[in-house]
C-alpha cells in the first residue's frame, strides 16, 4: 500500500511540474499550448539517450531542460506572431509529428520498441527506500520550481505577462514588445515540461513513443483549468484532484465496472472532455483562481481586430 501511494505520488509530482509549466504559458500568458506532451517527450528522450550513452543523470536532466526550451523556441517564434488560436492547432500538429519522429527514427530512438535500461536515481538503494527518496527529491524539485515561478510571476516580467493576457493591445500601446515576452514564457514553460520528461524517464527506466500520447496534454490541461489558470498553488491542487480521479476511477473499474483497458481509458477521456467544457462554461477561473477581469471584452459575434 505504501509503495502504491509513493508510486502515485511520484507520477503526481511529475504531472505537477507539467502543470506548472503549462500554467506559465496558459494561465499567466494566455498561450494555448495543446502540444505540451511533445516537450515532455523531448525531455524524456534527451535525458534517456544521454544517460544511456554514459552521461551523469544530472547532465541528462539539465540537457532535457534545455532541449524542451530549444524545441519550443522555433515553434513559438512561428506562431506567437499570429492570431492566438493558431498556436493551438500548430501545437497539436507538433505533438503528433514529434511522436511520429520517435516511432520512425529508430536509429536514434529505437522506434516503437522504446528505450530500456534508463539509469535510476539513487541506484545504490532498492525497493521502497529508493522510491521514497525519489519522491522526496521530486518534492524538493516541485517546491523549487514553484518558488522560482512565484518570483518570476511577481516580477515586472510576470506582471507584463498578465497584462498581455488581460489586454494585449494596451501593453502594445505602452511600447512593450509583447511577442518577445510571450515567446520567453512559452520557452520557459516548455523547458519545465522537458525537465519533467527527464524525471519521468529516470523513474520509469523504460520509455516508448506510446507513453507520449495526446491524452497526457489533455490531462494536464484539465488539471490547470480546474485548479485555476494563473494560480500556481491551485494548479498543483488541480493536479492532485486529477490523480485522485485517475486512480479512483481505476479502483472503481477494478471493483465494479470491469471495462477493458481501452474502453476504460476512453470513458475517462469522455469525462475529461465534458469537465473541460463545464469548467469553461460555469467557472472559467477554476476552483481556486481569483475571478479576474475577462480578457478585453470582444465585440459580440466578432473578434478584437489585431493591431
Amino acid at each position: 500500500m505504501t509503495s502504491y501511494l509513493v508510486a502515485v505520488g511520484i507520477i503526481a509530482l511529475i504531472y505537477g511540474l507539467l502543470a506548472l509549466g503549462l500554467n506559465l504559458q496558459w494561465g499567466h500568458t494566455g498561450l494555448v499550448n495543446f502540444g505540451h506532451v511533445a516537450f515532455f517527450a523531448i525531455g524524456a528522450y534527451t535525458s534517456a539517450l544521454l544517460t544511456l550513452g554514459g552521461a551523469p543523470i544530472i547532465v541528462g536532466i539539465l540537457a532535457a531542460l534545455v532541449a524542451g526550451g530549444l524545441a519550443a523556441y522555433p515553434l513559438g517564434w512561428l506562431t506567437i506572431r499570429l492570431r492566438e488560436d493558431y498556436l493551438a492547432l500548430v501545437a497539436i500538429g507538433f505533438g503528433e509529428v514529434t511522436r511520429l519522429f520517435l516511432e520512425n527514427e529508430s536509429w536514434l530512438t529505437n522506434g516503437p520498441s522504446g528505450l530500456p535500461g534508463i539509469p535510476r536515481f539513487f541506484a545504490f538503494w532498492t525497493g521502497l527506500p529508493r522510491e521514497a527518496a525519489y519522491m522526496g527529491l521530486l518534492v524538493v524539485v516541485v517546491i523549487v520550481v514553484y518558488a522560482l515561478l512565484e518570483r518570476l510571476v511577481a516580477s515586472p516580467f510576470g506582471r507584463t505577462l498578465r497584462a498581455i493576457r488581460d489586454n494585449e493591445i494596451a501593453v502594445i500601446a505602452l511600447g512593450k514588445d509583447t511577442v518577445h515576452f510571450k515567446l520567453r514564457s512559452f520557452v520557459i514553460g516548455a523547458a519545465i515540461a522537458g525537465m519533467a520528461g527527464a524525471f519521468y524517464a529516470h523513474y520509469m527506466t523504460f520509455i516508448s513513443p506510446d507513453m507520449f500520447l495526446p491524452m497526457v496534454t489533455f490531462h494536464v490541461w484539465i488539471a490547470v483549468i480546474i485548479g485555476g489558470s494563473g494560480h500556481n498553488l491551485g494548479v498543483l491542487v488541480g493536479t492532485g484532484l486529477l490523480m485522485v480521479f485517475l486512480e479512483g476511477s481505476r479502483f472503481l473499474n477494478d471493483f465494479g465496472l470491469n471495462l477493458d483497458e481501452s474502453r476504460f481509458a476512453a470513458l475517462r477521456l469522455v469525462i475529461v472532455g465534458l469537465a473541460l467544457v463545464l469548467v469553461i462554461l460555469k467557472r472559467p477561473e477554476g476552483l481556486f483562481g481569483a475571478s479576474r477581469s475577462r480578457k478585453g471584452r470582444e465585440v459580440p459575434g466578432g473578434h478584437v481586430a489585431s493591431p
Partner: protein
Amino acid sequence: MTDLTFLLQTILDGLVTGALIALVALGLTLVFGIARFVHVAHADLLTVAAYMTLLAEPHLGFGLAAVLGVAITVALSLLIHRTVYRRLVGGPSISLVIASLGVALALRYLVVFLWGTGQHAFGLPIRRALWFGPFRIAPYELMIVATVVALMVAVYLVLRLTSVGRDMRAVADNPNLARVCGISPERVITWMWVLAAGLAGVAGVLVGVQTVITPYMGWHLLIPAFAAAVLGGVGHPFGTVVGALIIGVTQELAALYWMPTYKLAAAFLVMTIMLLIRPSGLFGAREVAR
C-alpha cells in the same frame, strides 16, 4: 509502369485525398471566418457521421443511412452550438477553442467507448478499378470526387446567390457592420453550422467508403485540413480548396518518396513553411499576423 505514369498516378491519388481534406477544411474555414475561432472538434464530427451511418446501414441501406448520418451530425453540431459555443460568444475567443477541445475529446472517446478502437467498413460491394489508359481509379473514388465537386459548387452558389450566403459573407467581412445593417448573427451562425457540419458529415461517409472507419479517422484529418486552410488563407473558401488539393498531393508524394507514416509530417511541414513566409495564405488578404 514507367516512372512518369507512377508519379502521375500518385498525383491523381493525391487529388482524391485532397478532395476529402477540402470538405473538412472548408467547414473549418467557414467557422473561422464567421464564428471566429479554430474549431478543434470539427474533424470529430466527421467520425460521428461515419459511425452513425454504420449504425443505420443494416436497417436502411447505405444511401439512406448516409443521409441520416449526415443529418444527425448537423443536428449534433447545432445542439453543441446551442449548449456550449453560443454561451461563450462575447468572451475571449480562446475559451471557444478550449471548449471545442473538450467537445472533441468527449465525441471521439464516446465513439471509442461504444465501438472500441477496431476497424469497421460499410457493407458496400467491392468494385473493380477502372483504367483510363495507364491510370487506375476506383469507382468509389470517382463517386467521391463527383460528390466533392458537386458540394463545392453548391457551397459556392449558396455563398454567392442566396440571401443567407450574402449575410454570411457580410458577417465574415465585418461583424459590426453586418449587425448594424440588421443581419441576425444567430441566423447566420445556425446556417454556418448546417453547412460546415454537413460538409464534415459527408466527408466522414466518404472517408469510410474509401478506406476504413476508426475512431481516429477524423483526428487524422484535422491537421491536414488546418494546413489546407492555412495554405489557402484561413477564412477564404476558394483558397482553402486549392490548399487542400496541394496538401493531398503533398501527402501522397511524401508517402511515396519519403515514408508512408510521414504523411502527416509532410502536411505539417508545408503548413510551417507557409506560416513562415506568408501567414495569410496564398489567397487570404485578411489580417492574421499581428
